[in-house]
């Protein structure tokens, strides 16, 4: 029988996520909450940036953490705790995205690919962030999720592929599509270049599909 005093000590002294999972499995009532506290900001950012809606993000996280709480005793240490927890959160977000597939995706604004929302030089960091955030929110969901994980949250392509359950080539290719769109909307591409471009579904789409599975 583990006493409350002992389990509290484990929580306080736990130095790694794996320690916290073990303490949770051993009955420490505080261990899982501590694990959640360590990771919740990053998880919140992923959920919010993926789902766009704060209420949906909160619901997804609540479901994900409860599901992780229940599954934690069967957690196997071969996978990193963070990766495991992230996978549960990302899956909860993806489930929600799939459920609302019937809703139309908000298209990128047709401001003209070479016409940035405002001159970049005149913008503060905060304004830039808001503009980037807004542009990100308007990407199609299939491109937004990999961009959030790889480019914003810094996951590797391999980790992202595992999290999203798609091939690494697909992650790269969706990131490429998304970045190309963002580069236009964010005003990094000049008019001349953007205008001269083949549209997104141009001649390389066939090859693209063949390479996606790599």
């Amino acid at each position, binding site marked *: 029988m583990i006493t409350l005093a002992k389990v509290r000590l484990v929580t306080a002294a736990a130095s790694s996520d794996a320690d916290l999972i073990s303490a949770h499995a051993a009955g420490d009532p505080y261990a899982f909450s501590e694990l*959640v506290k360590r990771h919740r900001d990053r998880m919140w950012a992923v959920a919010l940036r993926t789902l766009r809606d704060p209420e949906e993000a909160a619901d997804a996280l*609540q479901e994900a953490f*409860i599901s992780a709480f229940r599954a934690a005793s069967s957690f196997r240490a071969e996978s990193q705790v963070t990766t495991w927890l992230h996978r549960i959160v990302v899956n909860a977000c993806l489930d929600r995205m799939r459920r609302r597939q019937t809703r139309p995706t908000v298209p990128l604004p047709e401001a003209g690919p070479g016409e940035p929302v405002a001159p970049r030089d005149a913008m503060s960091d905060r304004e*830039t*962030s808001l503009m980037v955030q807004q542009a990100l929110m308007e990407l199609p969901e299939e491109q937004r999720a990999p961009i959030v994980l790889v*480019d914003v949250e810094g996951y590797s392509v391999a980790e992202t592929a595992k999290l999203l359950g798609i091939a690494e*080539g697909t992650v790269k290719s969706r990131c490429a599509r998304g970045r190309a769109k963002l580069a236009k909307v964010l005003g990094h591409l000049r008019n001349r270049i953007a205008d001269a471009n083949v549209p*997104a579904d141009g001649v390389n789409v066939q090859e693209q599909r063949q*390479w996606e599975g790599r």
Partner: protein
Amino acid sequence: MTGMERVPMGPPWSVDLIADLHAGVLPPEVAAQLRPRVEADAEAAEILRALDATLEDLQALPPIPMPDHVAARIDAALAAEARPGIAPVVSLNDARKRRNRRLGLGGGVLVAAAAAFGIVFAVAPGGDQANNTPGDAAPAPTTNSNSASAPLSLQRNELGSAVGEVLKAQNYGPLETPDRLAGCLKGGGITSSGTPLGISPINLEGKDAVMAILPAGLGEFRLVVLDPKTCGPDQPAGVLADTTIKPR
């Protein structure tokens, strides 16, 4: 097959092609041929720089801390889950499905039928109580014109089963306003400031009620069930249930 023969190796450049090169999508042999040509071409190099700048923008996005009310809500859900002697936080839909299975009805059939025919039906208060054995954790399929959000029917000993769903709601139901909630809490001698972590209409043993989940100190949460018909600042009897969730 490399696809190389179909890849345009010169201007006019497609942003998508350069983005593929930039993201490492292209097969290595194609990329190896394309890269020097792209780097030698001013326009293509400019596209590469634009993609780099886009990446920098994305990487520079600031972190988004979880808002306090969301953190508190998740803490409450985990506390309810961790507390022994309180029914686990089950999904409302799962609970309904379980009940419907026992009745020989798929939840989907029930909902689809109601939707298809615009059926409005309700189980009379007390009626489902007679069919439930004490301690039965599955709620009765109380349905009304808004079947998707029909209040969860609960027994007194299974309040914990509603925590997960109530935390997701800010629905004062018949109480209507935060002021009314504050008055009802005051009647029960319950002090709480600010917005509840979650609030939702429920049906407690056949009676329409409202459940509120309130923060109650470090890591502790209070489940309060109010009778919207009788509760008020001077009506302690309007509090139908009051229990605190805390870790062991």
